[in-house]
């Protein structure tokens, strides 16, 4: 996994995933820097907006598969 940043492309290694105080926390290392990505329920609308396109495509593909199975 890589993170593109103003100081260059850096490797991001995930070392663990856990729950802390209602947040989903992805622990990792950005190169040698200990790092965390923290997500809470308040971030869900933003994630949904950002992933709207891929989710629609996945949903449409699922419908096609279901219809194809029903026709068989």
């Amino acid at each position, binding site marked *: 996994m890589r993170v593109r940043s*103003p100081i260059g492309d850096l490797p991001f290694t995930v070392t663990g995933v856990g729950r802390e105080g209602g947040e989903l926390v992805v622990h990792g290392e950005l*190169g*040698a820097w200990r790092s965390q990505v923290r997500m809470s329920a308040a971030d869900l609308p933003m994630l949904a907006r950002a992933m709207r396109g891929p989710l629609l495509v996945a949903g449409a593909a699922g419908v096609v598969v279901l219809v194809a199975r029903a026709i068989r």
Partner: protein
Amino acid sequence: MPDTVVVVGAGLTGLACAASLPGRIRPVVVDRIPVPGGVHGWDTDETRSAEAAARSRGAILHLGETATRWDGEELLVMGQDGVRRIPARALVVAAGSRPLGRAELGLAGPRPAGILAATVACHLSETGLLAGRRPAVVGGGDWAARAVAELLHAGAEHIQVVTPDGVLRRFPESPALTVRTATPVAVEGGPRVSALRLQGGERVECDALVLAHGLVPLRNVDGAVWEGARTVYAQPADDPATVSAARQAGAAAAAEVEQMLDAA
């Protein structure tokens, strides 16, 4: 207990130096970037092999930590965990090189916004931040070629390259690129840069100015800027930079450190 020698810079030169130091010395390598490799990049075979050689030699790497001051006996380092003091018998500065700054180029005039070092322009462009739509680039060497490629990729509409010494590296083929050999003498504009004035009076209109000419050693550790007690400099300024020059400079610095410690 072995003598400690601190190497500032985990690029190919710094790693080669650490790997070349004799067994009675414990190398400690410090770099402000959290990955080794410096400008050569962390994801290359050369960097992986240089890091492995340094580590197998017993080197300790403090990556993502910034060396700030050397007093001849101790290096002060700031990192994620706070301040670290590393006592050492010698310091090797292997911090790489940078293009000449505005004062070093002798550019007169006001100090408007929009004047960037090529190193900064490249980083910004890589992250999609365009320094200017009609930038001028001073220089024709490796940094200039890299800056031009990154600026074009980021969406620059027209780039005017001014090379003071006529040197011209492998530049991308593009109708958006104009190249001329001339000596820049002044900057115009305010609050943002609007033109670069050339010797003879000609003006190169631009909305950003990227400085990419020449190479000088990057020195930003207080106490090791010019000479410095127990300090060795390993900063090849080949343009373009080469892996072999970096390795040679690292090995030469290691030999110099050994002589210095033997003489002490």
